[in-house]
């Protein structure tokens, strides 16, 4: 009996250690594609709670034909945007995708849904699924 309890405790402990998601998304903002425009952008913070480096190599969404990791920069007065092949998040670290910096470029919407689902992959492994609602009304801009 003691042995069984011990095994049960071990299992519970193991489950407890595995229960928290390795990657957590917060501060999710997805701008609504403008009418007639085939693209939009998504911003969020990703916190790596696992004990290893997480490398985002691919992001997909059924609501867009293509999702790419991009980075905007303004250097010497020139605005540039480039594709980023992968996004590495060290163990315990948070990486923030934000306006004017790294972001997800969402291209060619497949419909007019109010919500979208983003799937984040590390190689072949699906490591995070994020549900988001489109935001931003540019005609009534917020100062936030």
């Amino acid at each position, binding site marked *: 009996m003691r042995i069984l309890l011990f095994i049960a405790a071990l299992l519970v402990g193991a489950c407890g250690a595995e229960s928290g998601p390795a990657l957590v998304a917060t501060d999710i903002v997805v*701008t609504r594609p*403008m*009418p*007639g*425009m*085939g*693209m*939009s*952008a998504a911003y969020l913070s990703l916190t790596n709670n696992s004990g290893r480096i997480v490398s985002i190599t691919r992001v997909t969404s059924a609501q867009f034909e293509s999702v790419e990791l*991009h980075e*905007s920069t*303004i250097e010497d*007065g*020139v*605005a*540039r*945007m*480039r594709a980023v092949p992968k996004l590495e998040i060290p163990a315990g670290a948070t990486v923030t995708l934000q*306006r*004017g910096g790294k*972001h997800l*470029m*969402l*291209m060619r919407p497949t419909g007019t849904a109010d919500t979208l689902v983003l799937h984040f992959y590390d190689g072949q492994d699906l490591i995070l699924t994020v549900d988001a609602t489109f935001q931003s009304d*540019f*005609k009534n*801009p*917020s*100062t936030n």
Partner: protein
Amino acid sequence: MGPKNFIVAIILAIALATGIFVAARLQAPAALKAAFVLPAPMPLPEFALVDQDGDAVTATSFREDWHLVFFGFTHCPDICPTTLQILAAARSELAAAGEEPLPRIVLVSVDPERDTPTLIGKYVDYFGDDNLGITGDLDELRKLTSGLGIYFEKQPGDGSDYSVDHSAAVLLIDPNGEFHALFGGPHSIENYVHDIPLIMANQ
């Protein structure tokens, strides 16, 4: 000099010093936060482009109103909408504060290959009702940008998926149709709300 005259002289000296100090304060322009005002406004170069309705836009089209001009493109999901949103928010705040005149927001496309008048019209309408979208012939665009020191360069891409590097600056054109001041960026609502009335008042 008697004690009475001495006191009068002191009072006069203090009054004179105060007067000079106040006059100096009144004459000194308040410091701008972000804008660089050109020592002498610069006439726009000659060019012939079109607006979102297909109507001709030339150097003379910028007369009568103040214009805030940004060079970007509609297939730009991050910096361009963010900049236009900042300009629109600043204009809203200036309007709410009762400032007049209000500058008109202008997007000049550096991607005329994809930005048709209809498309740029839809795009600028998204940020407000009175915005101006300009596009047209690439050679005519270059006349405008090179004359104003604005850089842009199409980047290699996959078919119609490509980006365009471009100057991040916003230009303030005065009602004489002349390049008057430049906001180099990074752009902020606060800087525009602070600087624009000062620039207009000191014109």
